[in-house]
């Protein structure tokens, strides 16, 4: 290795640069850890709520009166609507807990012939058990909720707050489904006719999900006796709450950056001052000041980048371990890899590198050969 190379410097000064290195790695760990837990929580909330509305729009009458014909004919007449599923009733729900938040998942009572359609629309697969038989009070529950509350096929659940579930009567769990939407399904139609039910509560699925014009048209009709729940309104609502958590993340990042800039800046400035003789002799020997700047910059960047990588890898390992030990038994999961969180964490070495270089560069500029004298 060349004597003035970065590797030579880092290898020979490992002990001296260690404190700054460790601090940087820890800072990166903190921010990345917080970011990915937040990201995973939001992902799981989406699964319980937004993902469903991403695929379907819910239209429900507020009163005992049926949905107006105007709305029904609009929905039936729209070419983009692929299928309409009438909802016989909402049977209650589960509370699902993610690391940071918890959210309620609703259960739906639908017609037997709509069951496979519903599973297809929500992209859910039956992983265990069977579909519910009609009028038998049998229930399909999502895998995550089964895991979180340790519910197995054959269990009876109804009003069990200790299992975070309150349903309108006792149901037998006959199947477990898994996919991108947490939804609970049963089919107990009794003697109800499809057309009648359709007039009170339905969900519809679009052929082309990118063209959500029908939602806007329905909302603009401003029917006060009908509630139209679509993705956009739910998203705006969720955003209000999530905004606070995201702000917290930004503030935490900002604070860690400031504290590290000051402290690591202190540390590296002191290290720099202790190398003044080295820089003096290099200038005397004939190395240009720009060469020395570049050397300093390369060392700084190499060290901080290395610390960043170590921090990220450490976080990924910790999260994977936590998943096995803490989260998965609770039916939760934290994703260990997320680009946007990495970018947030990357801001730390970026800003610290920049602030580290300011004082030394200023110092080097003013350095003169007087320091070579006794």
């Amino acid at each position, binding site marked *: *290795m*060349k*004597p*003035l190379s970065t590797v*030579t*410097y880092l290898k*020979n*000064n490992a002990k001296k640069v260690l404190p700054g290195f460790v601090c940087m790695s820890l800072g990166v760990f903190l921010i990345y850890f917080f970011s990915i837990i937040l990201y995973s929580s939001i992902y799981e909330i989406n699964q319980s709520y937004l993902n469903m509305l991403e695929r379907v729009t819910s239209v429900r009458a507020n009163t005992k009166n049926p949905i107006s014909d105007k709305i029904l004919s609009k929905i039936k007449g729209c070419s983009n609507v692929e299928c309409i599923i009438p909802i016989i009733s909402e049977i209650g729900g589960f509370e699902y807990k993610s690391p940071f938040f918890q959210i309620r998942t609703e259960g739906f009572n639908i017609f037997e012939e709509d069951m496979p359609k519903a599973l297809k629309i929500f992209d859910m697969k039956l992983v265990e058990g069977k579909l519910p038989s009609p009028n038998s009070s049998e229930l399909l529950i999502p895998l995550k909720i089964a895991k979180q509350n340790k519910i197995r096929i054959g269990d009876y659940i109804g009003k069990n707050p200790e299992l975070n579930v309150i349903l309108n009567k006792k149901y037998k769990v006959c199947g477990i489904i898994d996919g991108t939407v947490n939804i609970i399904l049963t089919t107990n139609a009794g003697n109800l006719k499809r057309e009648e039910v359709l007039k009170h509560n339905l969900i519809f699925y679009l052929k082309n999900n990118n063209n959500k014009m029908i939602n806007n048209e329905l909302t603009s009709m401003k029917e006060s006796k009908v509630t139209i729940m679509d993705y956009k309104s739910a998203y705006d609502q969720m955003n209000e709450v999530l905004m606070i958590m995201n702000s917290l993340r930004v503030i935490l990042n900002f604070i860690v950056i400031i504290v590290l800039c000051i402290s690591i800046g202190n540390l590296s400035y002191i290290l720099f001052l202790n190398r003044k*003789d*080295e820089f*003096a*002799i*290099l*200038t*005397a*020997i*004939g*190395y*240009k*000041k*720009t060469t020395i700047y570049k050397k300093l910059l390369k060392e700084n960047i190499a060290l901080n980048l290395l610390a960043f990588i170590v921090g990220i890898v450490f976080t990924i390992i910790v999260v994977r371990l936590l998943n096995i030990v803490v989260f998965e038994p609770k039916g939760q999961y934290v994703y260990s890899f997320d680009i946007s969180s990495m970018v947030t964490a990357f801001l730390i070495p970026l800003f610290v590198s920049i602030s580290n270089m300011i004082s030394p560069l200023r110092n080097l500029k003013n350095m003169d*050969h007087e320091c*070579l*004298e*006794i």
Partner: protein
Amino acid sequence: MIFKMESVNLVYDIGKEVQTFALKDINLSLDGNRFIGIMGPSGSGKSSLLYAMAGFKIPTSGKVCYGEIDYNKVSPSESAEIRRKDFGFIFQRHFLIDYMTVLENVLVPINDDSREAKIKAISILDKLGLAHLTSKKPYQLSGGQRQRVAIARALIGDPKVIFADEPTAALDHSSSIEVMKFIENYKKDKMIIVVTHDSCILQNANHVINMLDGAIVSIDKGRGGI
């Protein structure tokens, strides 16, 4: 003419209350491969003369030329290039880089880690009696050994001129003699300029420039001393 100085004045702290006239109206020309000493008491301007010749300090007035190059007319980075290629420096303080080994320190001016460079460095260290210390760090050496490493560093780039500013001031008597003996070996191939206040080490100098209060008082041929 390797070095030519015409009416060189060097003034420090211009604009401040007390100005220091380090060099007053210096006219000097040096050439050839020889051992030149610059002598004088403390504050006589001998180090300033060396800095002016090496291009560290641009004179306040007057002209300093190295060969065809006028220091007034080149940029600092060009002047740095000249130093790297043609000059070697030995200072009173060794200025070895504390986290590098002896071998790495010697290779610093050429920043080369090829086999040839290493062999060259080791042969120079061998002549200095330090070949067995190549992997030691500066803090593991004695004062004399460190200064010899500094000399090896000054020689690795095959410089045309060697500048030495009080090279033996921090050494004991026997180390001083050894160091000077080694430097003097090169007077046939290079120009060696040694600045000192100790006349003993200039015994074998070809010329000695005596300085007092920033001006050249006399230039003696042969033995040094006023």
